[in-house]
């Protein structure tokens, strides 16, 4: 059985979505998570554009005023144009947030950021750090950080 081109393209775009989700769940580096979200967006956009495909159709642009026999659906293309621009804006905003986190805590590892955030939040709320009674008495994490009061 040979797969047809549609199945290959669907696998490709779903694959990009899955790689993006893998990256979000399995990596601990903030910049890599942002990049994974970008990959996920690309996969979703590809899927949207593909939904407008018609067999043997031309791009929805009239050349020399002649209307082709059949043209692909222009609505998903316009939607994806919107989605890409919004995606870029949101990614830029995410990168700015990552920059701020780096200046505040000096690290981009989400596990270290989590412990530092927990410490700061409990300190601000005036409650002791929650400690699990089952936690083994390990060495406390020594985390390089600066600038956090």
């Amino acid at each position: 059985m040979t797969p047809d081109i549609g199945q290959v393209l669907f696998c490709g775009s779903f694959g990009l979505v899955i790689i993006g989700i893998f990256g979000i769940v399995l990596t601990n580096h903030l910049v890599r998570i942002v990049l994974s979200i970008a990959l996920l967006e690309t996969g979703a956009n590809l899927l949207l554009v593909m939904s407008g495909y018609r067999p043997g159709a031309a791009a929805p642009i009239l050349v020399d005023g002649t209307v082709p026999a059949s043209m692909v659906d222009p609505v998903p293309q316009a939607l994806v144009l919107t989605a890409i621009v919004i995606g870029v804006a949101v990614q830029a905003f995410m990168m700015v947030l990552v920059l701020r986190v780096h200046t505040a805590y000096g690290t981009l590892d989400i596990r270290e950021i989590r412990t530092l955030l927990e410490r700061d939040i409990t300190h601000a709320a005036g409650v002791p750090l929650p400690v699990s009674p089952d936690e083994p008495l390990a060495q406390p994490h020594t985390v390089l950080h600066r600038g956090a009061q």
Partner: protein
Amino acid sequence: MRRYLALLLLMLMALLLLAVAMQFGFGAAPMRVGSAINSAAPGQVGAANIVTSVVLAYRGIDTLGELAILFTAATAAGLLLGQRPATTQPDPEAGFILRHAADLLFPLLLVVGLFIIVHGHLTPGGGFQGGVILAAAFFLPLLARPASRFRHGVFGVVEALAGAAFIGIGLLALTDGGPFLQPMLGKGVLGHLVSAGTLPLLYAAVGLKVGTELAGLMAGIAAYEARDP
């Protein structure tokens, strides 16, 4: 252990998604709006690029919303980045190749970006695509000479005027008796540079807004990195 569990669950999800993907019909999506727009748009809007007619004529308010999201993201980023203190030293100047390549590419990128914006209703491209090229053109000199000052004030004024022009053209349609953002000024000859009514003007506003906004955002991030110890 948790990581392996997550991996296993994701594999399962991937399998399910692929199984669903195999069920889809390719090229036979049940959508009728597209073919209706394809046959009606050249006569109704007069733009050779039908995607442009969808973006600016049929879904013009969505595009305004998109510009609002872009503006909000850029404003939020600017707020988070804050002002750059005057005392910090900028990065040293880039090497010979980058400096001269930036000088050579700046006019070229400017021309390409403006061409893509102006021909947005005729050829693939438009305000968003051309605007991003404009942003790259204005960011490149800053990359080559970090000491040179980025004129945030001028860019802010251009951005505000472009955004106001988009809304103003939309409001002008109200005085003409049509709904908000209805194309005006006649359709012209299909495929000519001056055609499709107000669509080229709207795309010019979009291009200037996107270009100045992204350039300002990138300049802000670059200045922040220069300050970061």
